[in-house]
């Protein structure tokens, strides 16, 4: 028996214009949590997709328990008990949670679906591991956090032993991350082996036993976590020191840019409102952050603000101009840039090239349009500039199909596009989701620059570090309401956490809460 449960030897995978994996070796021990670290586009997802049978390597071999195996497709991987949670979830939107979990591994009785048995098993697993899901909800209606729990349950449902997590924590709240870490430790104790991709060094330090580092498709080495520090890891990954805090001067705030008054937004999931009577303002030269645990109305709030969803009542004013009746385009024209929460659903037309996506919010301006025609030269120039400025890496530059880009680089493209519009208000939802530490440092600097130039930034983030580092004011949202406003200099992560969890509420809210639970 080999020391390693999985061994990938000298893997090379070439895509048009780029060697995504260049002679990479990865050895996974049984029962260990093995982290995979590397910049955006370093080739982590590619390597894992090779292991999961989605791509065939151009060179190299894979061994399981010392025996060479051929993994031609995910079914082969499944037969070898390899499961994967993808960076971008692969769920059927119009199916329920339960249907998604059992899809491809259906329990049948004389050709009929045994849904009840499946439901029991799913509920059992979800209880055992604390993976809270609603089996009957449609996937298109549930939050990203829950989608991810669905993906994890999918692996568990199939009794997989080798679990690949491709950036599972990018979409989770701090509390959920802690839970996930605990769950992963539990898996490891049970003898399951875990491959864990993350850009968050704290998480690696917290759970991983060993870490393999990639840089630009090349293997940089494997280290024992107990022998290294966070700084060592980031040095190994990007080749320089990365600062984890943002330098920010105090500046004078100016006129009110955004004024939200008594905004109420209906929910698609339940009869209650998702956003309840929310009011606040954002001024020039200010980064205001809406913090909160995922699913407390932030998503609905932003969609109502940007026009993607309808509101019930209330008003939204941008420099005094009422927006609630305006279309998405008119709102954008009024001076609102928007980094959306879901980069695949809203942020990009995945089958468009990178350069086409980089003008998604501007193709109709005179800069890129002349007498109804697209000015391709201008688009190319624009793309080349943004690619350079935001370090967007891809196989073929401007003409790369966006779908083939790495997740982090897709994100950089969106963030770059929206910041570059230099509108008076930037609505940034999880702008650094999925970015490597170097890129996060850069995007934070860019957001601060935006604010310093007298613009307003409305940041929605689940990441408390980011919230504390960047904001000038913090609003905590809980169950659709703003339950507190804080100055980051005068508050602590603990205090925020308490409010976010609904620990502190006014009496009125408590009453309502009690009534609601009594009604159930």
């Amino acid at each position, binding site marked *: 028996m080999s020391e390693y449960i999985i061994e990938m030897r000298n893997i090379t995978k*070439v895509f*048009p*214009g*780029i*060697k995504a994996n260049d002679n990479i070796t990865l050895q996974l021990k049984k029962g260990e949590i093995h982290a995979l670290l590397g910049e955006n586009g370093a080739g982590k997802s590619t390597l894992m997709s090779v292991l999961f049978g989605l791509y065939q390597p*151009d060179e190299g071999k894979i061994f399981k328990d010392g025996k060479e195996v051929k993994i031609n497709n995910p079914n082969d991987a499944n037969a070898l008990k390899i499961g994967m949670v993808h960076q971008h979830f692969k769920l059927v939107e119009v199916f329920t949670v339960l249907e998604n979990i059992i899809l491809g591994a259906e329990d049948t009785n004389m050709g009929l679906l045994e849904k009840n048995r499946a439901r029991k098993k799913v509920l059992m697993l979800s209880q055992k591991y604390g993976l809270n899901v609603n089996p009957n909800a449609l996937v298109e209606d549930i939050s990203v956090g829950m989608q991810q729990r669905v993906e994890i349950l999918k692996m568990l449902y199939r009794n997989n032993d080798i679990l690949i997590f491709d950036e599972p924590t990018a979409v989770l709240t701090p509390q959920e991350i802690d839970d996930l870490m605990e769950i992963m430790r539990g898996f490891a104790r049970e003898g399951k082996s875990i491959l864990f991709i993350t850009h968050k060094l704290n998480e690696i330090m917290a759970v991983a036993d060993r870490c393999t580092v990639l840089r630009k498709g090349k293997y940089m080495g494997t280290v024992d976590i107990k022998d290294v520090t966070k700084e060592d890891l980031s040095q190994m990954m990007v080749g320089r020191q990365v600062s984890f805090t943002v330098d920010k001067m105090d500046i004078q705030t100016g006129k009110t840019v955004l004024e939200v008054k008594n905004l109420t937004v209906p929910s698609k999931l339940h009869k209650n409102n998702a956003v309840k009577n929310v009011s606040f303002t954002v001024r020039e030269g200010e980064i205001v952050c809406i913090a909160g645990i995922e699913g407390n109305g932030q998503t609905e709030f932003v969609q109502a603000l940007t026009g*993607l969803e309808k509101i019930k009542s209330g008003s939204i004013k941008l420099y005094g101009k009422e927006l609630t009746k305006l*279309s*998405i*385009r*008119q*709102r*954008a024209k009024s001076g609102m840039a*928007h980094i*959306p929460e879901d980069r695949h*659903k*809203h*942020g*990009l*037309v*995945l*089958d*468009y090239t990178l350069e*086409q996506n980089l003008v*998604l*919010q501007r*193709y*109709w301006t005179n800069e*890129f*349009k002349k007498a*109804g*025609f*697209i000015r*391709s030269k201008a688009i190319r120039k624009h793309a080349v500039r943004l690619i350079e400025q935001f370090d967007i890496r891809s*196989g*073929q530059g401007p*003409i790369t199909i966006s779908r083939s880009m790495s997740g982090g680089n897709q994100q950089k493209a969106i963030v770059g596009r929206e910041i570059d519009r230099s509108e008076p208000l930037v609505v940034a939802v999880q702008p650094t989701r999925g970015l490597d530490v170097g890129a996060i440092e850069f995007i934070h600097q860019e957001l601060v620059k935006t604010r310093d130039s007298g613009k307003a930034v409305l940041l929605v983030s689940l990441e408390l570090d980011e919230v504390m580092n960047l904001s000038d004011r913090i609003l905590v949202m809980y169950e659709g309401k703003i339950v507190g406003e804080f100055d980051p200099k005068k508050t602590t992560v603990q205090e925020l956490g308490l409010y976010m969890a609904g620990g502190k509420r006014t009496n009125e809210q408590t009453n309502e809460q009690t009534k609601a639970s009594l009604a159930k």
Partner: protein
Amino acid sequence: MNHLEKLKRGLSTVLSALISVAIGLAFGFIILFLLSLSTYASAGEPFTLKQVFDTAYNEGFLRLMKGCFYMVRRGLKTEISQAAPLIMTGLSVAFAFKTGLFNIGAAGQYTLGAFGALYCAIVLKLPWYLCLLASVLFGAVWGAIPGFFKAYFKINEVITSIMFNWIGLYAVNTLIYGGGTGAMYCAKTTKTWVIGSGVYEGTTIPNISVFLSEKPQGLGLYLKDTSIAIFFAIIIAIILYIIINKTTFGYEIRACGHSQTAAKYAGISEKRNIILSMAIAGGLAGFGAGLYYLSGVAEWQPLVSTSLPGFGFDGISVALLASSNPIGVIFSALFIAHIDVGGGYMNASFFPREIADIVSGIIIYLCAFMLLFKTAISKGISRVFGAKKELEGGK
């Protein structure tokens, strides 16, 4: 590298279409062979396999392949006259595909277009270009209605289009027939009046002879009575190509086609786009009917037209075979018209002319596999050009 990539994408699309065609023709030949065999066998006289093969080849397959060139004097005109409406219905379906819609209603829009054109020509006696305009408008309205239902009530356009196909067909038949006394209906021929001469002077599209010398030679001789409709169709295809690929409107509709959510985020009005693109698709199909009926090559027969016009459905094959590329549509329409005409020249005592439909049916079926061919081909091309070399070229 940019060029290599483009070349690769283009080449693999064209090659995979050609593979589909080749396989379709091969199947066609097998069917011809079997038909030939069964006819010989049932004749009861002794025969050799060579005879069977020769009949299948010479009197079937070769004529199918030769298309109009088997009897070029009359054939060429028929083929070109059919290609024009086929290009238009093909463009109609292709354009809707680009916006993510399936316009199965091209047949109905075509029917309405025919009515519009004939009404303006026969009843109003308008000049042909106004009649053409009418065909576009009628088709556009018929396309816009399913678009409207889709945009505002989320009713699938396939269902409404199919219903509107039949509503359109029977409405048009009834209107034209008018209980036997319709103004457009000639009771003697049971067709609409023949346009183009007498009181209908100027209602037909001019013939190619306007471009030719007094005494044309060669091809010109065969083409001189063919209307210039085909040129309109080709020009429209080119314009459509430019609209889809070079204009911001094209950018918008393709964005909608790829991702409705992202298009919405970009502020593109989904409703407007759906209705507009269905209207345009309908207008294209209607125009096709105008081109056909105003060329004076056929009349509408309200009593026998109880099935939807074939040009409408063939538009789907044309679009699929061309991977929805408007320029490709020109060629695939010519091809479909070619084998259709060829089908008519096969020896009818052995082979029914529907063989041509079977061949195009098989080709459409294979179009579904085109993606598969495409990936394989582009892999092959990479191997030939060498992915490694490409790497050195890029950065």
